[in-house]
């Protein structure tokens, strides 16, 4: 496989896994934040949103420290779990999950919060558990938000640079994703190569947004 294809494939793998895992982790978190009332909720919300405002290199730097065997967390990861995360795919995957978390949680939380409360209450009075209510009533009615959150998470992960560079470096087939490859090619004055990567990303992003618009329009017309 050519270097070019390998890099694009790795990028797609990272973004897909990040999106799927964040659907699994982010939706319950969004549900909790949308409906639970507890002390310190503002703190949790600020933590979830932190990656939006922090420079990616800062996130990457602290994750690099946390993953290295010199830190307490890192010692546990490396020696007890046998997880070597710095400069591996697993490491940049965790970095991506942290970095893209608010892009999944915030839209889903807002959409759940904006659904009429009576929908949830009606399902409860009909004897349905919280889980059944979430699965059969709430999630189907926020499909447009789930879709756009997924697309944004995917795109945001494709576009990340600082976090991956800090914890992943530039190892072909392991941690070299498209954005790093562009930087690498431009650094070595290989503009043609940088341009190939960049064009593919522009094309994919544009197609993604068009698809999203088509889907949201369709599901909005079905729901409204």
């Amino acid at each position: 496989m050519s270097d070019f294809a390998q890099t694009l494939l790795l990028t797609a793998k990272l973004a897909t896994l990040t999106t799927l895992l964040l659907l699994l982790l982010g939706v319950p978190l969004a549900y909790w934040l949308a409906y639970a009332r507890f002390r310190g909720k503002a703190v949790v919300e600020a933590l979830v949103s932190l990656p939006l405002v922090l420079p990616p290199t800062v996130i990457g730097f602290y994750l690099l420290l946390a993953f290295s065997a010199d830190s307490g967390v890192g010692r546990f990861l490396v020696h007890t779990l046998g997880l070597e995360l710095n400069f591996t795919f697993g490491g940049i995957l965790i970095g991506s999950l942290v970095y893209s978390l608010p892009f999944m949680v915030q839209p889903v939380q807002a959409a759940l919060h904006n659904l009429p409360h009576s929908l949830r209450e009606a399902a409860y009075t009909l004897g349905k558990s919280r889980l059944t209510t979430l699965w059969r009533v709430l999630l189907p009615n926020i499909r447009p938000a789930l879709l756009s959150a997924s697309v944004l998470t995917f795109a945001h992960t494709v576009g990340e640079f600082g976090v991956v560079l800090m914890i992943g470096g530039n190892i072909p087939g392991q941690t070299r994703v498209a954005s790093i490859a562009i930087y690498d090619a431009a650094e070595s004055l290989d503009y043609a190569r940088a341009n190939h990567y960049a064009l593919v990303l522009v094309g994919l992003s544009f197609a993604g947004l068009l698809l999203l618009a088509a889907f949201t329009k369709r599901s909005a017309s079905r729901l409204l």
Partner: protein
Amino acid sequence: MIDLHLTKPLQTAHGPALLDVRLTVAAGELTAIYGASGAGKTTLLRLLAGLSRPASGHLRVGEEVWYDQARGIWLPPQRRSIGFVFQDYALFPNMTVRQNLEFALPDTSGKALVDELLELMDLGELARQRPQQLSGGQQQRVALARALARQPRVLLLDEPLAALDVPTRLRLQAALAAAHQRFQLTTLLVSHDYAEITRLATRAVELDGGRVVRDGVPAVVLPVANATPGFRLTGTVVAAVPSATGQTLQVRVGEEVIRVEVDATTPYQPGDMLVLTGSVQRGR
């Protein structure tokens, strides 16, 4: 039978108040709750349904204890046998009318009940539509049918008919009375409409500032402050025949049938509802 004593702090327009209601409702009774807004009517229904937690008291329905502060019992809404009809209907937009009803079934064996309810509420034609395609009155009938599909012992209605025009209201009141009869329900209905209360309820309870201030037979306890010199009767056309000037109608009002002459601009048909108004002339 429902036996309750429930308290809960209320936020009213006149500052905080305490809801403190004692009620005993016989099985099969249709009780109307009325009173100024902020009196605690909706709060009382929500406490009964388990959608809000009371501050203290107890709530027994038949042999079951749904809430007892002293014994630390509080059943969540899922474990109470209730049908709740919300003011905003709360139909699920992602399901068709039929799916809304099927979702409410306690188990999958109730398909026949769904068909019966669709028939009873005159929704057969609309079964495959989604709620957002329906009119207000149609949505209301779906909400009532869905609450009944759960096969509850207690039916709670929070001003279900307030947003509807008069003919739709009358049809729904008829549907509600039929359902109450057919399913042997104990029903609590929040309403502002004295005519509706008189027509449907066997008992009317007025709340004010969180307390019961009046309780009894609707015709006796309901205020007559807005008594007018005229009359206003609501009836159903049972027969309509053309006449020289328009139509001659026979209109059933309660037990009576009244003959009425109308002009023919909008011809009536048997089954139509109409409101007769007029004033009483002193005879010679």
